[in-house]
């Protein structure tokens, strides 16, 4: 099964296309941002935010638009790492770490394995559904509405604060003991579920009609 997946060429293409993208769009944008920071129009954290946001959105777009599934998965990684950067901006290193480890490391790998095991690469029908244009329209409206609603609120002018690591841990394990237990059970359920479904005895499966 594994030999069917042309890993090297994929990565080549990703690197090339990624490089071109960053070069063609990212560079001018970066220059503009640096200039803006230099002239004091925006602060340095803002510049970082914009860069991270740019990566996040671009990655998200890639994830939902790219026809190639592996590309999409890799775009997702970009997004998730960009999100982790945002977490850093929000002063929560711990969560940024978790994000990178769990998502970038665990989940994406899991998804990639899933993709491989389902032969998604070779499946020509796995593209976008017919309702894509309508979905695009709908989601644009939705995002617009969401943002309108969000920005209509008076959020004041707060600033971000660092949460001390020990406090975080103390609160988590002292007050939120029950959620942790629940999550433990939850993970147990998830494992059970995955096992049950993946390990379904062949006798339990219906005869495949090919």
């Amino acid at each position, binding site marked *: 099964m594994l030999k069917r997946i042309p890993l090297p060429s994929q990565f080549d293409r990703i690197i090339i296309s990624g490089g071109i993208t960053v070069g063609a769009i990212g560079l001018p944008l970066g220059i503009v941002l640096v200039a803006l920071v230099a002239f004091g129009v925006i602060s340095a954290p803002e510049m970082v935010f914009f860069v991270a946001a740019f990566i996040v959105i671009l990655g998200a777009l890639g994830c939902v638009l790219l026809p190639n599934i592996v590309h999409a998965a890799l775009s997702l990684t970009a997004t998730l790492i960009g999100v982790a950067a945002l977490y850093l901006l929000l002063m929560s290193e711990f969560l940024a770490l978790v994000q990178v480890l769990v998502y970038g490391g665990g989940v994406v790998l899991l998804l990639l394995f899933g993709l491989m095991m389902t032969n998604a690469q070779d499946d020509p029908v796995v593209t976008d559904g017919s309702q894509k244009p309508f979905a695009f329209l709908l989601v644009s409206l939705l995002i617009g509405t969401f943002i*309108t609603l969000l920005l*209509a609120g008076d959020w004041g002018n707060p600033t971000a604060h660092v949460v001390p690591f020990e406090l975080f841990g103390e609160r988590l394990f002292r007050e939120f003991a029950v959620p942790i237990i629940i999550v433990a059970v939850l993970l147990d359920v*998830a494992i059970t*579920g995955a096992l*049950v479904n993946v390990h379904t005895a062949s006798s*339990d499966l219906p005869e495949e009609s090919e």
Partner: protein
Amino acid sequence: MTDIFGQTLNLNYVLLLPEIVLLIFSMLVIGIDAFKRQLNISGNVPVGLALAGLVVALTLSILQVNMDEDFARLIQVDSFTSFFRILFIAITLVLIVGSHEYIEKSVSHVGEFYGLLLLATVGAMLMASARELLTAYLAIELLSFSLYIAVSLARSDRRSGEASLKYVLLGGVASASLLYGLSMIYGVTGATQYHEISAVLSAGDTGLTTPLLLGLVLIIVGLGFKASAVPFHMWTPDAYEGAPIPVTAFLSATSKAATIALFLRWFGGPLLPIASDWQFILSGVAVATMVVGNLVALQQVNIKRLLAYSSIGQMGYMLMAIVAVGSGFGSDATSAVLVHLAGYIITNLLVFISVTHFFNQTGQEEITSFKGLAQSNPYLALMITAGLFSLAGMPLLVGFFTKFILFQAVVSAGHLGLVTVAVVASTVSLYYYLMVVRQMYLYEPEDGTEQWRLSLTGYVTTLALFVSLVVFGLWGTPLYAAADAAAAGMF
């Protein structure tokens, strides 16, 4: 113990004993089942263990009926919680007793299945008892995860996996929506504790009305998905059809009841101060649910899909009552919802267990396959008829009483229009229930169909449910009193 702010935390684990017992037993069931070949034990051990756990948990819950205490400000064990604990445990108990033959015959991974049922029960119980958003969210996920898997466990049925996939993917979208909504609530109030949220919201204008509204919308979407409210209901018929029948029953009973419990906890608690903001959203959803659920049910040919749409319609009535909760009739409306919920669950269990036994015998689930049941098994036909009539709110059965109380509460809260829609929808529903009744009573059975009997446990469970159906239908006082006490605990 104290928290980081120096406030005392009540860590009295006795409060959580029923849940803990169920967790332990579920692990035991799963564990023992995994090694049953090595341990060389009979197949009856998992079910025995599961029942034992349920009985113990039920006993403990009953012992805690009069308690009103919180656990680490996350879980509130009050009469409302007790009501739902007892309800949920009873549901699982009845389901397992009533349909264990089916489970052993038509479910793969029996041990895991029982374990998952217990875990789902725990999730449902926590949903009813949570007093903090995160706990509530995790409880929802615990219930949902267990059900995602349970749905996929029908042996030799391609539909099972498909149902599970639909359920899990759409469930993911819904819980993302729910979370987004919760984040808005959190952002606006800065709290996850119900009472703190309530305090902030009742204190007056936060200047963040629109984000709050967005949050409300998404919470209603998220919970509406679990409650199968239109237009978030579309997974329901498919999941119901694909799942093993006891799981379908569980979906229609525990899952729905837990969602309603959460609705009540949230909309009757922290979100009550802004009732006018969510009432109109919920009314719209409720109306759509009642109408679509009952209309589409008219056209169904599969009994499980029919019951799915019927339960969608039923959820519409309850959502409507939750609108009434916001109109200053909180306690009355809540107790009415609880009465109706209990009645609906008793009825639904009767129907589903009967259908389970029918499926055991015939392997059919088309409505037309019920042809002549009144002659091949008059007892079962009577049970199904009673159940369906009760669902339609026909008199002498519990459905009539509970619907009467429910609708009355909504009208008393000033929502006559909603009730009018509900009554019309409930009349429409009678038609499709009669379609089933018609098959059973009007037609002769297929040639060669012999008279057959249920198993002993089948008789016991159905009869018990039938008796409560009639008794509560004619004398609803115990039900209503319990619901009233439960509602009083919440308000």
